[in-house]
């Protein structure tokens, strides 16, 4: 376990600021939480704290993006996805502007603050927007890679970040699908921080003689269908795991792609059912809503019956 994703992201912003003069950073009075303050300290002339006004912040960034800048807007994921949806859709995405939407405290990671602060619908919203790419890093390194990738794009990218320090995964060269365990019995496709739980689940399944293949899939859009398809061709079974409601998120995007391409397999998905979440310590909270090694192993085992 290394830095929390938000620390890694904030430090990377500050690092890239030195080599990317077009990089400007905006925050909505949560820079000490999102850690964009690292950039603010290093480059105060390129840092704008706009107060608690996410919609305004996104459109300011859009204006800057039309004049040669590559802005990164930072706020809690839930408030970017909900309070600034109109601005992200009608200004950023419609005009395909290079603005990076960095959604902090993604999923249930703002666990103690409760349902009002937990982003469980952001991925569905973002992936529905034309031109938007959607990245959900699994660990600190992937968060850095997501930022590096996003800065190379000429259009918008949403990056969902996590508040807490999570276990590190095997490192890939750039943001993309990582296979952390090879297997032939069942494919577990884990989005974001659920990947570390999927890895633990694979170890549990191995004890029962089930060989699970674990794919960490951080890119929801554009979806890496080929890697998923190749894995499922071996296993014939797919369990998707995500820290998001099941409607419209990662599992939805996988099942849509599979249906369209006629890829047939036994399928299950773990995510938040059609309900609001609650306050609590992060890991037990995730477990209550199905995201735990034990539950992933259980559901994978059921698929293998």
């Amino acid at each position: 376990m290394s830095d929390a994703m938000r620390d890694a992201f904030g430090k990377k912003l500050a690092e890239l600021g030195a080599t990317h003069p077009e990089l400007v950073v905006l925050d909505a009075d949560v820079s000490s939480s999102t850690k964009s303050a690292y950039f603010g300290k290093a480059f105060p002339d390129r840092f704008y704290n706009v107060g608690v006004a996410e919609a305004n912040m996104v459109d300011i960034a859009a204006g800057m993006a039309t004049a040669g800048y590559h802005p990164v807007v930072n706020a809690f994921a839930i408030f970017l996805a909900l309070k600034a949806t109109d601005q992200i859709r009608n200004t950023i995405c419609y005009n395909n502007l290079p603005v990076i939407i960095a959604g902090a405290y993604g999923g249930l990671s703002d666990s103690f603050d409760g349902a009002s602060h937990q982003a469980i619908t952001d991925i569905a919203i973002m992936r529905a927007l034309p031109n938007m790419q959607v990245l959900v890093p699994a660990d600190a390194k992937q968060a850095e890679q997501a930022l590096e990738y996003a800065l190379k794009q000429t259009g918008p990218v949403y990056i969902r970040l996590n508040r807490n320090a999570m276990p590190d995964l095997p490192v890939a060269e750039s943001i993309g699908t990582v296979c952390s365990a090879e297997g032939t019995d069942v494919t577990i496709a884990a989005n974001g921080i659920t990947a570390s739980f999927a890895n633990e689940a694979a170890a549990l399944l191995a004890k029962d003689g089930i060989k699970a293949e674990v794919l960490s899939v951080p890119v929801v859009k554009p979806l890496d269908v080929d890697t998923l398809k190749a894995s499922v061709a071996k296993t014939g079974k797919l369990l998707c795991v995500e820290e998001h409601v099941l409607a419209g998120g990662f599992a939805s995007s996988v099942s849509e792609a599979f249906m369209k391409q006629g890829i047939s397999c036994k399928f299950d998905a773990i995510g938040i059912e059609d309900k609001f979440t609650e306050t609590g310590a992060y890991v037990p909270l995730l477990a209550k809503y199905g995201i735990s090694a034990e539950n992933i192993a259980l559901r994978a085992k059921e698929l293998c019956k």
Partner: protein
Amino acid sequence: MNTTVKELLSQPDRKFNAKELALLAAYFRSVMFDVLHQRGTGHWGGAASSAELTTCLYFNRLNIKADDPKWEDRDRLILSKGHASVNLYTMLSHRGYFPVEDLPSFRTLGSHLQGHPCMKEVPGVDMSTGALGHGISIGLGMALAAKQSKKNFWTYVITGEGCLNEGQSWEALMSAAKFKPENFVLMIDYNKVQLDGTEDQIMPLGPLAEKLKAFGWNVCPKAYDGNNTEDVLDSFAWMDSEGAWPKAVVYDTIKGKGVSFTEGKNTWHGAVIDDDSFAKGIVELNADIEKKEAAL
């Protein structure tokens, strides 16, 4: 097209004087009325209300190059009241950004002249607008980019009441007063009539100038007549005078200006201009063109 207007428009890069601008605005208003009648869709009231503001900007004020719409040092104009799109398209086409002959394709399938302005489709549109309340924030971003890159271009935002009903506008007003970028101007087309009724019936904004001042803006002490080109040019002189940034000008205007039975009527916000209304209205608009020509 009237020959005097034709003569003027043959020199689109010229800085026209107030009387010439009044004639052009009268002509452009007739073009808008004609296009909206032909199409049977679009927004007459707010397009007519802004005719002098946009004419004076495009034919006297803006530092722009029609043959280089993306010129990075150009002045920016954001029509935050994007429903007045036919007004913007009329200006841009007559300023040389695209053929005037394209105007009748407004709002038809396949046309680049979308219902509301789209910067990806139309050269010269600095920002896509339509959803109300975005313009001041976006303009602030452009003005901050100018400041950041030490460029001198100006950013103008035109709003109506609708934009100022939106909460985002007031977030933007607050933040502009915090960052104080230079060369950033808010022009309010204050016709006091909304879609469903008058401003007083729907959402009273007054005292508007005082509210803007309280939000930290340098507000022009004079409420200019936004349908009078001499007044609009005077307001430009005020923008150029010494004074703190950002600056705002509140223009008194008339919704549906130029056609007696549409003036000040909320029902003409987006009503279809039928044949009968067109026949009556165009007579008045043409008479105004003749009057403005005689006054040259």
